[in-house]
């Protein structure tokens, strides 16, 4: 009895000590949190091998002494920066793929200038992507390529894949990519054509500003930011947590404006017309039918994605014409799918293994 009571008192003492230590650490590190700048991101060595207006193409330095024949090109969503693929050493999909022996290229987007307001879906899908694929082919000497598209980058990759004909695409990986836009939840309600005047927005603003895009994302989860800050303070003693929090926070705040015409077409043809899902989409004079996609396709989906709900992304596999296709549903949300703990444990290895078998 006395021994049990002693142990219990000791446990309580340890807990109080740990709580005091963390409180002190919170105060010390909290000061550092306030005065230090944003964490460095995108540290994996790379070269910019092509740039034109909003478009950037990176080639990452290989990390293996023997690589797969087919290079990999990641296509970032048009609303955000690509360093979410390369947040920090150990928290980087790019670094993982490099270590697994892939030759990795990434399409990134800079803020489009006002003179780029006329860029349309045509430019992104049948100018920017083919141009980058060409540059990759020149750099590697390989005619084939695998595309990995994240969110809207997945949509661009799908449209390219459906319209490329006998192009160089060998494999397609989509990460939480919306196909049935009528299932886009609140986003669809807010852009209801009865109230949402896309023409006025585009004609007045030219380029749809960051604040507009960011407000849309924030309103989906209005309490998330405040709750995130409280959790960051609670975990202030934990350097890894704070670093990860700050990297994600920096990334989500660094939203990119959208070229007006691209925004208008996305609204009319995808959000309102749902043409990627129902058919009838024409881009750059081509009929875009997902059934025309015959290359192997893999789709990784987040179970609790509040931006692209499961019901919006799941129809992809049934719509494509490929016989070799795979779907993977992971716990987590829209961003944790590509850079969260489940991505590190499950998604990256699954994508790497799937691609490896098809990259020789």
């Amino acid at each position, binding site marked *: 009895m006395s021994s049990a009571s002693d142990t219990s008192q000791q446990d309580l003492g340890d807990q109080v000590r740990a709580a005091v230590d963390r409180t002190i650490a919170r105060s010390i590190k909290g000061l550092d949190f306030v005065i230090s700048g944003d964490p460095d991101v995108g540290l994996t060595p790379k070269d910019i091998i092509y740039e034109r207006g909003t478009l950037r193409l990176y080639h990452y330095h290989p990390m293996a002494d023997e*690589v797969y024949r087919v290079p990999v090109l990641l296509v970032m969503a048009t609303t955000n920066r690509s360093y979410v693929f390369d947040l920090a050493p150990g928290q980087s999909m790019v670094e993982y793929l490099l270590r697994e022996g892939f030759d990795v290229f990434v399409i990134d987007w800079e803020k489009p200038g006002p*003179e780029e307001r*006329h860029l349309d879906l045509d430019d992104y899908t049948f100018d920017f992507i083919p141009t980058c694929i060409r540059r990759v082919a020149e750099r590697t000497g390989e005619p084939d390529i695998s595309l990995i598209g994240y969110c809207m980058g997945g949509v661009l990759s799908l449209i390219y894949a459906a319209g490329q004909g006998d192009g160089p695409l060998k494999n397609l990986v989509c990460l939480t990519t919306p196909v049935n836009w009528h299932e886009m939840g609140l986003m669809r309600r807010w852009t209801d054509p009865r109230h949402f*005047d896309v023409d*006025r927005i585009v004609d*007045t603003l030219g380029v749809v500003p960051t604040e507009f895009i960011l407000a849309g994302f924030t309103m989906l*989860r*209005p309490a998330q930011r405040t709750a995130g800050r409280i959790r960051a303070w609670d975990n202030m003693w934990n350097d890894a947590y704070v670093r990860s929090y700050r990297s994600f926070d920096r990334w989500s705040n660094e939203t990119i404006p959208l070229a007006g015409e691209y925004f208008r077409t996305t609204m009319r043809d995808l959000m309102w017309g749902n043409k990627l899902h129902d058919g009838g989409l024409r881009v750059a004079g081509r009929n875009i039918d997902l059934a025309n996609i015959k290359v192997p396709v893999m789709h990784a989906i987040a179970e609790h994605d509040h931006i692209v709900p499961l019901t919006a992304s799941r129809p992809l596999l049934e719509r494509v014409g490929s016989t070799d296709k795979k779907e993977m549903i992971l716990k987590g949300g829209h961003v944790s799918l590509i850079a969260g703990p489940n991505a590190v444990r499950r998604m990256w290895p699954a994508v790497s293994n799937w691609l490896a078998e098809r990259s020789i």
Partner: protein
Amino acid sequence: MSKQDASNDPFDPLRKFVDDMEKRIDGVANKVMGTDGFSQAMNQTQTLSLKLQQGFQGAMAAHLKNINMPSRGDVLRLAESIQALNQRMARMELLLEDVARNTGSGPTAARSGPPRTRKPPSQRTAAGTGAGALT
């Protein structure tokens, strides 16, 4: 932190409170913001703001014209001309590369880097060929 630690942690009630509040606020807000009325009100506010902006842009353009200064539209048109030239250059560059490739007269890019012979794990032999060490 282990579950055992968490159960006695003095900050645990605060964590639970934050989790609950986040869920509750998001739930209520999503319900309100999912209504037709909210969507209509939000877009009316936005339209008003855009109309004001349009009016201001028009007035400013007229003022700049009066004082013989280029307006935003004039600068934009100039930037668009430069962008069109850039695009034309990019297309010409691609065409020239095609011509060079077809005639065999273009400089061949030096393709450095590791050999592209890696095999997937399922095809690697017991001797370990194709595994590729990290550099």
